[in-house]
């Protein structure tokens, strides 16, 4: 079956069309083309029409002002990595994703809207308090990425909406940490990932954030745990390491799948976090 498809000429045309039909949106297509794989030579099959948005000028480009960084949805992972505005921790995550050829095509908007459990930008965007701007024909709304992602392959995107851009508070951090485990170094999906930022000034922990990816269906971040050591003296932070570890342990609810076992995911994540905290809070 050949599905209907639409190639809009600009954003207005795209949103107009989205208001009339329930489309599958194609950005880079790197995940969709594989998820819908067929035999050699056959077209991919979709239950509803598809729309190609990757080349829309309005959905490309990265800008920043004093307060925020604005990443349009169809920027490729390589473009995100190469931009001078991008926070170090997001760059660290992006460069571990897939391989050079896929990073040329896969988009940051696709990684978010796809909402795969293993999407490596997601925990980092949770950590950075990033928001998404969603546009429809007559409206727009801004929502936290952590609210937009509802679960595995599940988002709050409405039928007539498009993920227009990602908005990240423009802030710098003392330490930017990203660690991801997979079966090999290159071109692999995460078994688990841990990201964290930490800022210590004058012996006071000014900022501390942690997010876990690829363990639960949705990335894990808990502000209440973070606040236990924020604005505390470094020595108090050190004494709370085991409390933090046990708090985080209770939040991990992984599952066993083809990439890893639940036990490996949870135990290893906790050990990596423990080592990271010891290293950063003591050294």
């Amino acid at each position: 079956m050949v599905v209907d498809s639409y190639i809009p000429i600009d954003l207005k045309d795209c949103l107009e069309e989205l208001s009339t039909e329930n489309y599958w949106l194609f950005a880079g297509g790197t995940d969709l083309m594989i998820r819908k794989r067929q035999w050699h030579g056959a077209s991919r099959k979709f239950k509803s029409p598809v729309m190609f948005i990757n080349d829309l000028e309005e959905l490309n480009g990265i800008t920043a002002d004093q307060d925020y960084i604005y990443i349009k949805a169809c920027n490729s992972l390589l473009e995100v990595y190469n931009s001078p505005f991008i926070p170090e921790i997001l760059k660290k995550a992006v460069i571990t994703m897939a391989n050079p050829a896929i990073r040329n095509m896969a988009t940051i908007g696709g990684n978010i809207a796809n909402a795969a459990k293993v999407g490596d930008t997601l925990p980092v965007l949770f950590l950075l308090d990033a928001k998404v701007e969603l546009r429809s024909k007559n409206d727009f709304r801004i929502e936290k990425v952590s609210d937009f992602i509802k679960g595995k392959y599940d988002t709050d995107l409405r039928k007539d909406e498009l993920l227009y851009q990602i908005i990240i508070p423009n802030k710098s951090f003392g330490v930017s940490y990203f660690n991801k485990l997979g079966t090999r170094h290159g071109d692999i999906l995460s078994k688990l990932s841990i990201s964290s930022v930490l800022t210590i000034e004058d012996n006071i922990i000014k900022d501390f954030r942690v997010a876990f990816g690829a363990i639960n269906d949705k990335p894990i971040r808990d502000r209440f745990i973070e606040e236990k050591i924020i604005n505390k003296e470094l020595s108090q932070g050190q004494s709370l390491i085991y409390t933090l570890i046990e708090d985080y342990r209770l939040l991990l609810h992984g599952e066993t799948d083809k990439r890893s076992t639940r036990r490996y995911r949870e135990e290893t994540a906790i050990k990596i976090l423990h080592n990271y905290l010891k290293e950063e809070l003591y050294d």
Partner: protein
Amino acid sequence: MLKTINFTLNNEKVSIDVDPVRRLLDVLRINFNLTGVKEGCSEGECGACVVFINNQLVNSCMVPMGNVINKEIITIEGFKNTKQFEVIEASFLEAGAVQCGFCTPGMILATENILRTYKNPTLEEIKEGLSGNICRCTGYQSIFEAVMLAKEKGGDLWSSTVISL
């Protein structure tokens, strides 16, 4: 519904009526008979099907035809007419970096991408640059050596980032 898609293929303007969700890989191999573009894993991990789209290395098994409108595509068949290819080919032969040859078109285009990206690639940068290309028989060491040899032989050949056919 079929759509007319125009693009430039190995420096020639072409047009094809095709389902926009059909893979670029299938169109290149079946419709244009460019069989140097190989199908390996079919999921973007082996790099046998890589081509350049607007001078960017991509896996053609992941590209829907709807995303190639007005783009410039170069396959190994087009790339073989360049001076860069001559140097890379000679280096692969000298280093013994070809055995069965199935991965070689992808390895050569990935090598070109590395040499465009890094002025003097380190071993780590070569490994990273080839991380999306899998070889099952030659072994990677000789391929890494071939990339270094190509840089040595090519000199300033890669100072420009645009391929000239």
